[in-house]
């Protein structure tokens, strides 16, 4: 390859330089031809990625002026009601950022809006992945990485919320302190370890600062790399449709289509966050004053993603035990630690739970339509309802004043809703999914109702149905049947108990819960029969049963 033609453009020169030294052309050739399927819901994760880039950019600006110290100082600057008031360096520098540094308030607001939208977009991305079953084999690991990313997002958000050292952030930290102290035996030690002494101490701001600007962003960057690398390596999933199979990817190449789309989308996301930061106030720290452990403001709440923990704390009855002279505060321990721990555990374990129940060990690259997996969809909706009820409970004081209700009634109503709401939502969603499946079946068999009523010469009335074209019909009939697993009997023909039979009974129960109620998908023979009846020309199917998901081990 020493004998090359000399490129005669500047870009060509650069490309040649890189190619002869790094072999860049091979990588570009491979990457640029990589296909991605096109759907709006595949761009939700991109919103999160771009918000994170906005966070890094605006956050870097903020670090240039923010002083992560709890040392005492007095603010001297443009905001009159806090002028010459003693406060921490952290709060004074946040005020200087807001009022005395050009562009500082804009950057603070862009950073905070980007943080809220970062976690919100991760959440909707996670909804998409969950409801379409994109977490199934081989993507379970990426689901776990994504879950950890979401948790790190919460950590990043909360540590950032605590940094300005205003009244609001200090009150948030006080709740965290209380939650840590509720851990039996070691709680008080952990609290003293974290705050380097009695709350609030003088170390928490510099400690949280390093967590916020180095530790968590570093971990997020590394895991985002792994997350995207796996999407590349395992290829992107695609929605079902004519011509789309588990063996192919139908979409557009990275270059030029996705490079342009994704690049453009970054600027759209950045632009929206800049607009929000410019025009809509967020976390007006100057209103709250410096942190002082005695006062608190009405309407003190965390940012949206922590609302559910605050809400759980507000809903929990005041249960407290004293065991051998030690107080165990279930009123804080359960909502503050045990409940969020359980929720996170179920979230991370879900892909394995579901594959255990279905016995499905195949790879899936074609997504599920949510209606075709009623129990998963219903469980997801129930989880969202539970989370939302808890988040609403954290806003009980604002609900009371703005809707003219009694805060006591709201708390009691939400206590019941938190327990009864998710099962009701589960049941309703499951029924809706099954109903939609039945509707799909009808549509595939008989076509769309046109609303045209025709009277025949014999006086018979009927509604004209407009048959679907075969592309539309494919979407309604492409999915596999899912049935509960069938396990061998507990005892073999010689009366010997099978090892693991008890575990299998649990598995059988779970599997039945998942797949007992179902609408069998249409088989080609059913379709053919129906269409023959409707006197439509249709290629007859082979007439055999559809393949059913293989069951058992």
């Amino acid at each position, binding site marked *: 390859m020493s004998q090359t033609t000399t490129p005669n453009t500047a870009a060509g020169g650069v490309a040649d330089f890189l190619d002869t030294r790094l072999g860049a052309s091979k990588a570009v050739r491979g990457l640029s031809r990589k296909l991605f399927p096109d*759907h*709006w*819901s595949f*761009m*939700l994760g991109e*919103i999160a990625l771009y918000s994170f880039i906005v966070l890094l950019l605006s956050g870097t600006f903020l670090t240039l002026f923010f002083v992560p110290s709890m040392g005492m100082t007095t603010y001297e600057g443009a905001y*009159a*009601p*806090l*002028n*010459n*008031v003693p406060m921490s360096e952290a709060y004074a520098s946040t005020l200087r950022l*807001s009022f005395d540094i050009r562009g500082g*308030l804009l950057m603070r*607001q862009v950073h905070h*809006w980007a943080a*809220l*939208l970062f976690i*919100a*977009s991760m959440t*909707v991305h996670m909804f998409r992945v969950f409801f379409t079953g994109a977490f199934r084999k081989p993507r379970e690991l990426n689901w776990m990485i994504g879950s950890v990313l979401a948790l790190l997002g919460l950590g990043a958000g909360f540590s950032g919320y605590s940094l300005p050292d205003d*009244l609001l952030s200090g009150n948030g930290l006080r709740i965290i302190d209380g939650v840590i102290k509720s851990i039996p035996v070691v709680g008080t030690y952990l609290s003293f370890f974290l705050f380097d002494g009695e709350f609030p101490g003088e170390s928490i701001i510099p400690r949280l600062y390093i967590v916020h600007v180095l530790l968590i962003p570093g971990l997020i960057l590394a895991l985002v790399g792994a997350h995207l690398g796996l999407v590349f390596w395992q290829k992107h999933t695609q929605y079902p449709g004519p011509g789309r199979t588990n063996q192919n990817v139908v979409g557009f190449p990275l270059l030029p289509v996705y490079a342009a*789309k994704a690049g453009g*989308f970054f600027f*759209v*996301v950045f632009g*929206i966050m800049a607009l*929000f930061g*410019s*025009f*809509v*106030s*967020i*976390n*007006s720290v100057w*209103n709250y*004053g410096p942190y*002082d452990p*005695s*006062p*608190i*403001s*009405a*309407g003190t709440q*965390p*940012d*949206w993603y922590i*609302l559910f923990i605050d809400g759980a704390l507000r809903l929990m009855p005041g249960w407290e035990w004293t065991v051998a002279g030690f107080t165990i505060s279930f009123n804080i321990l359960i909502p503050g630690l045990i409940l969020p721990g359980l929720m996170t555990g179920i979230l991370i374990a879900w892909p394995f739970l579901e594959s255990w129940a279905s016995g499905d060990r195949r790879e899936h690259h074609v997504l599920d339509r949510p209606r075709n997996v009623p129990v998963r969809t219903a469980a997801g909706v129930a989880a969202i309802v539970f989370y939302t009820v808890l988040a609403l409970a*954290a*806003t009980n004081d*604002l609900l*009371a*004043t703005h809707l*003219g*209700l*009694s*805060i*006591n*009634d709201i708390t009691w109503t939400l206590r019941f809703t938190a327990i009864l709401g998710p099962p009701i939502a589960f049941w309703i969603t499951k029924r809706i999914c099954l109903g939609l499946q039945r509707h799909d079946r009808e549509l595939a068999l008989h076509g769309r109702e046109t*609303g045209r009523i025709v009277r025949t010469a014999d006086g018979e009335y009927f509604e004209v149905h407009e048959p679907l074209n075969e592309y539309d019909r494919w979407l309604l009939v492409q999915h596999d049947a899912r049935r509960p697993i069938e396990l061998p009997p507990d005892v073999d023909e010689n009366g010997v108990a099978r090892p693991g039979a008890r575990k299998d009974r649990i598995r059988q129960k779970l599997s039945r819960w998942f797949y007992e109620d179902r609408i069998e998908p249409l088989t080609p023979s059913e379709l053919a029969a129906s269409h023959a009846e409707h006197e439509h020309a249709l290629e007859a199917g082979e007439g055999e049963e559809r393949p059913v998901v293989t069951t058992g081990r």
Partner: protein
Amino acid sequence: MKGLAARRRRPLATVVLLLMALVVTGAAYAVAAPTFANASTTAAGDVQRGRDLFVASCASCHGAQATGTRAAPSLVGVGAAAVDFQVSTGRMPLANTAPQAPRKPTEFTQQDVADLSAYVASLGPGPAIPEDQYLNLKTDDESLAKGAELFRVNCAMCHNVVGAGGALTRGKYAPPLEGVTPKQMYEAMVTGPQSMPVFNDANLSPTDKQDVISYLKYLEEQPSPGGFSLGSLGPVSEALFAWAFGIVVLIGAAVWLTAKSS
């Protein structure tokens, strides 16, 4: 109409119908929604005329001699400040029994309020209408900082740090302080209406009260430095905005970007 009838079974028809219903309901509410007017200041009072007004408007609950009934407390010794606050903010006369008397447009003129106050003040000694010297707003940094600190320590736990209001138990609430006159604020502090504690001159000196009022009025007059303030309610209204506008707009952009294909 034939074309419309043919399209009514289309899937989009439901969406359009729902949208129309929402727009109509919203527009109807916007027309019918109540609006609020403001109360005003007082002039010197006439006890005799005040008594006539009292008998006509207040005696049915507070008793002919203002000594109270089962329905309402005695007004002997509540002072002119209490009457001026309750009547000029429209809380009294009470429209109906509720956990708390809401602020509403007053039915009385300034002269009526002054006469009523003079009558009730004549029944027994109580907090008087504040002197004008304490109602002037201060603008120096030191007073504003003092007022802000006093407000955070004494008032913010119910009224919120910027006086946006907050909830109390069983449907009671600390009302928002926007649009309340300095005189009414002062009177509220000295008389402690409804669930509010009394801040007498030993607690908060008249100058302290003046600082608190000056801070609140400063907040009201200053534009929000960060842009649209979302009601100054803190993280909850920000959360609502992030989801209702942020996520919706971002998803809209994603839909738009992928609209031409597939």
